[in-house]
């Protein structure tokens, strides 16, 4: 046996090394699990943020009174042109 030739210190070092290896092997799955859980939590937060934003946007923003707006100049926001279309209809005639 090779061990017979080893000094006590060498044996102690080897045991310590083997013990560490064993402990690492034992802990590895839990580390992997923690990493996976953390990753899933991050993905869930991202998905919830996007979904929450979309719901908030549709539920609580001012309702859109038009489908689309095209303009030959980037002067005003889309909503401005819907307001113009609405306001002209109610401009009192002389």
């Amino acid at each position, binding site marked *: 046996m090779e061990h017979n030739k080893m000094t006590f210190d060498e044996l102690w070092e080897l045991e310590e090394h083997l013990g560490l290896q064993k402990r690492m092997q034992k802990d590895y799955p839990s580390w992997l699990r923690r990493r996976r859980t953390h990753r899933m939590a991050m*993905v869930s937060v991202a998905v919830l943020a996007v979904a929450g934003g979309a719901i908030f946007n549709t539920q609580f923003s001012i309702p859109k009174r038009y489908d689309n707006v095209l303009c030959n100049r980037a002067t005003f926001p889309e909503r401005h042109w819907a307001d113009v279309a*609405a306001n002209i209809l109610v*401009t009192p005639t002389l």
Partner: protein
Amino acid sequence: MKRILIILPLMTFLACSHERAEELPFYSQYASRTDLTVAQVTGFHLNDSVKVDVVILVADDTTAWQGLKDEFDIRTSEGVTSWIGDLEYPQQRTRRGSKPVWRAMAVHDERTLAFYRIENQTQYQALLDYQLNKISNK
């Protein structure tokens, strides 16, 4: 990681999948004019169920406005001028029948012309109701 790879393209697709409005020929005809601001509002909501398409022309200055007035045969110079225009030739006054028409309104103070595309009786009635309701609520 695989899930992220699936979710990311999906979200990108959803973000980019906004319906692009189709240009009305009338809008295209004026969009290249340098003396006008031209806008097209597609699906302007008159009420919960009725929508119309609107083309708006805004003249940059009095010269451009005078040009528009001549082009659309507008002879008044104040208040609001309105007429029913032919779909192909909006300057041509017509009667509302079964075919689609433009309901045109010119606001002199704002040098603005707005054309509401009316395709049927429902839209026409909804437009009148909108005007009536909003004016009476003012």
